[in-house]
C-alpha cells in the first residue's frame, strides 16, 4: 500500500491542475504559485519555528518525510523530539497527543487518512472536545488533528469516507476544510494557534494542485479567521456552497452555468464548524436559490445542516427547494466507472443549479 501512496504522491507533485481561468478572479494579482502540499508544509514549519510547544506526531511523519510528503524536511529541521514517528496505534498515540495538550503543549496529530481516526475517535470526542466544558475551563486542549479526508482515487470503500459531518456535529470541536493553498496556509496556522481542539480535513487529491498566492499569504503571520466562509465567485442567480475539493468543481460548474446565462455565487465554506451561517444566509437572501455540494454521504451531512439553517433563517427568501449534491449513498466502489458515479461531478452540480433555477430537464422518474 505504501508503494502505491508513494507513486501517487509523486504523481500528484508533478501534476499541475490549472484551475479555470475565471477562478483566478478571486485572488489578488500574484506572481507566485504554491501547491497545497507546499502550503501545508510551510505553515507547519512556520508555526513550529514560532512556538516551541508545537510538535508533530503521526505515522511516517518523520523519516519517511510524511506519507504524502506534507511534513517533508521537518524532522531534519526540528529533530526527533518535535517530529515523532509513531507506531500504527491510533488510539494510543492520539490519547498521548491529547494528554500532552492537557499539560499545555500544542500537538499536531496526523492521521494518515481520517478513516483511521475512527480508531481514535473516543479521544477526539470524549478526551479532547468535551474536556474544557466538563472541567469548567480548567483543562483546555490546544490540539490539531489533521490529515486527508474523503475520497481519493481508486482506494475503495474503507479509505474514502468523509468525516466532515461526523466531527462537525460535536460541540467543543472546530472543523476546518481548506480548498486552496491560501486556505491551507491560513487555516492550518489558525488551527495551530487556536486554543481549542481543531479537526483539519485536507484532501489527498488537492495536495498537488497549485494556486496563486499573494505576498500577504506568504507572510509568516498570515492567518485566516476560523468560522468565516469565503465567497470564491460572486453571483446573483443561485448560491452554491461547497468545501474542499468540491469548491473546484463548483467553480467549474459556475463557468458552465455562466455560458447559459446563470450567474452562480460559489461559497467556499472553509469552516464546517462553526458554520458561517450569516454568509450563507446573506447569499441565499440575495440569490433566492441554494445548491449544497459535498463529497460525503448525504444523510445527516453538511448539506442537510445548511439546508435546515437556511429554511430556519431565510425561508421567505427561497424561490425553489434547496438542492443537495452529495456522494452516492453507497460504500465507495472500486471500478472506475462506478467510482465516478459515486462522487459528485461538475455536471451534477450544474444540473442541480439549473433545477433550482427551473431551467433544466425534469427529474428522472423514480
Amino acid at each position, binding site marked *: 500500500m505504501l508503494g502505491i501512496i508513494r507513486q501517487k504522491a509523486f504523481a500528484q507533485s508533478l501534476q499541475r491542475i490549472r484551475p479555470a481561468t475565471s477562478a483566478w478572479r478571486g485572488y489578488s494579482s500574484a506572481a507566485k504559485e504554491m501547491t497545497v502540499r507546499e502550503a501545508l508544509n510551510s505553515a507547519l514549519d512556520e508555526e513550529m519555528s514560532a512556538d516551541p510547544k508545537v510538535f508533530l506526531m503521526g505515522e511516517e511523519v518523520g523519516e519517511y518525510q510524511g506519507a504524502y510528503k506534507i511534513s517533508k524536511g521537518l524532522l531534519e529541521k526540528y529533530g526527533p523530539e518535535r517530529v515523532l514517528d509513531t507506531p500504527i496505534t491510533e488510539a494510543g498515540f492520539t*490519547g*498521548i497527543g491529547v494528554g*500532552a*495538550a492537557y499539560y499545555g503543549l500544542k500537538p499536531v496529530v496526523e492521521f494518515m487518512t481520517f478513516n483511521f481516526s475512527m480508531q481514535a475517535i473516543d479521544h477526539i470526542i470524549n478526551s479532547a472536545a468535551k474536556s474544557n466544558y466538563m472541567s469548567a*475551563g480548567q483543562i483546555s486542549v490546544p490540539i490539531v488533528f489533521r490529515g486527508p479526508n474523503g475520497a481519493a482515487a481508486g482506494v475503495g470503500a474503507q479509505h474514502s469516507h468523509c468525516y466532515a459531518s461526523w466531527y462537525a456535529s460535536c460541540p467543543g470541536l472546530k472543523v476546518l476544510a481548506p480548498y486552496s493553498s491560501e486556505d491551507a496556509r491560513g487555516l492550518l496556522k489558525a488551527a495551530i494557534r487556536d486554543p481549542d481542539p481543531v479537526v483539519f480535513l485536507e484532501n489527498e487529491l488537492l495536495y498537488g494542485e497549485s494556486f496563486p498566492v499573494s505576498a500577504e499569504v506568504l507572510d509568516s503571520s498570515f492567518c485566516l479567521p476560523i468560522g468565516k466562509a469565503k465567497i470564491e465567485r460572486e453571483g446573483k442567480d443561485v448560491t452554491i456552497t461547497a468545501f474542499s475539493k468540491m469548491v473546484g468543481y463548483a467553480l467549474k460548474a459556475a463557468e458552465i452555468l455562466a455560458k447559459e446565462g446563470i450567474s452562480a455565487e460559489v461559497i467556499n465554506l472553509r469552516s464546517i464548524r462553526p458554520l458561517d451561517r450569516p454568509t450563507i444566509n446573506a447569499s441565499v437572501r440575495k440569490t433566492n436559490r441554494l445548491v449544497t455540494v459535498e463529497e460525503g454521504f448525504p444523510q445527516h451531512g453538511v448539506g442537510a445542516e445548511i439546508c435546515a439553517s437556511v429554511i*430556519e433563517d431565510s425561508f421567505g427568501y427561497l424561490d425553489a427547494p434547496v438542492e443537495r449534491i452529495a456522494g452516492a449513498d453507497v460504500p465507495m466502489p472500486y471500478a472506475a466507472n462506478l467510482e465516478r458515479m459515486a462522487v459528485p461531478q461538475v455536471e451534477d452540480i450544474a444540473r442541480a443549479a439549473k433545477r433550482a433555477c427551473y431551467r433544466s430537464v425534469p427529474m428522472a422518474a423514480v
Partner: protein
Amino acid sequence: MALANFSSSSRSNLLKPLAPVLSFAETLRRPISTSTDPLIIETSVPFTFHNCEPPSRSVETNPQELISFFRGMATMRRMEIAADSLYKAKLIRGFCHLYDGQEAVAVGMEAAITKKDCIITAYRDHCTFLGRGGTLLEVFAELMGRQAGCSRGKGGSMHFYKKEAGFYGGHGIVGAQVPLGCGLAFAQKYSKDETVTFALYGDGAANQGQLFEALNISALWDLPVILVCENNHYGMGTAEWRAAKNPAYYKRGDYVPGLKVDGMDALAVKQACKFAKEHVLRKGPIILEMDTYRYHGHSMSDPGSTYRTRDEISGVRQERDPVERIRKVILAHDLATEKELKDFEKEIRKEVDQAIAQAKESPMPEPYELFTNVHVKGLGTEAFGADRKEVRAVLP
C-alpha cells in the same frame, strides 16, 4: 507480624529523642503530630516483582506522616460514606463510584510525590481529588451539581479536575485515561520538568488495547509514566479471573518492569510510588499493581453482593482495612492514644457534615452556564438550546 517485631525490642530506640532525654510520659505529652523524627516500619506483605529489583520492605516514615495518613484516610472514608447517604437521598444523581477501602492508594501515593507530578485516573476519583488538595466542599458541591463544585457543577462525579495541583481528572471512558497519562508524561519530558505522571486504572481497564498501545510508545520513548493498576479484583461485576487470561497485571507489561504492592498498606504504597518515581525518571515506564479492595459495589446502582460474598467483604474489612492498619501502627508506636484518634474521627465527621451543609447552600449553575466553556475561544459563534428559536447564545 511485622508490627510485633517493633513493639518489643526497637520501640525504646525509636522513641528516644535525639535531643535531651525525656521520660516516657513526657515524651507522650509532646505534640506528636508535628514530630518528623524518622520511623522505620516494615511492610507486612513483601513486594512481588517483574523485570526489576524490588524496593526495600523497610519504609521510612515519621509520626507526623502517620497521623496525616490516618486523618487523610479517615476523611476519605467518611466522605464516601456521606456520599452514599446523599445518593440515597437523591441529592446526587447519575453515577457515583465510591472508593472506600482503597484509600491507602491515594494517601500513600501523595506521600511519595509532589503537586508538580501529575495524577490521572478514571471515574472513581473523589478520594484521589481530595488527596491532590481538593476540598470536601468542592467534592460535595460537584456531586450535587452546584456552583461551588470543582467543575462548577458541569462535570459531576466522574469529572473532577485540579490542574494547578497536577490532577487531570476524572475520566468516564474505561482505559482512556492511560494514553492521556502517557501524554502528560510525554509533555513533562518534553518540557524537561523532571516530574512524573501516575496513570491509574482498574483491573477491568487492564485489558484495554489502548493501554498496551500507550505502554509500547512510552517504553519506546522512555516516558516518565507510572501505570498504576488499582486491582480491586472486580471489573464492575466481573471477577478478574473471568476477564483476564493472565490476572497478574504487574507482569502484563512484558518488557516493562512491574511491582505488585499491598494496596491496603499506605506505607507499602508510599514506598512503591517513591521507587517508581525514581525509576521512571531514568529508565522509562513501570507498572505498579495495587492489591486493593472496594467495600461498595461498582457504583451506587450495584449492591456489590451478587458477585461476591458478604463474608469476603467483611473478611477484608476485618483483616486488611487501611484505616485500621494505620490506627494500629500509631497505637503500637504510642504516637497517639485511642481517644485522640477517636477525637480526630469526630472532628472529621463534623468537617464532612459542615461541608455538606455548605454544599447544599451553594446554588445550581445559572442558566447561561449551559453555554460557557464549550470553547476557550468562542469566536462569537452561535450555539443553540433545544428550541433554537427560543434559546440562542453567542459563545464567548
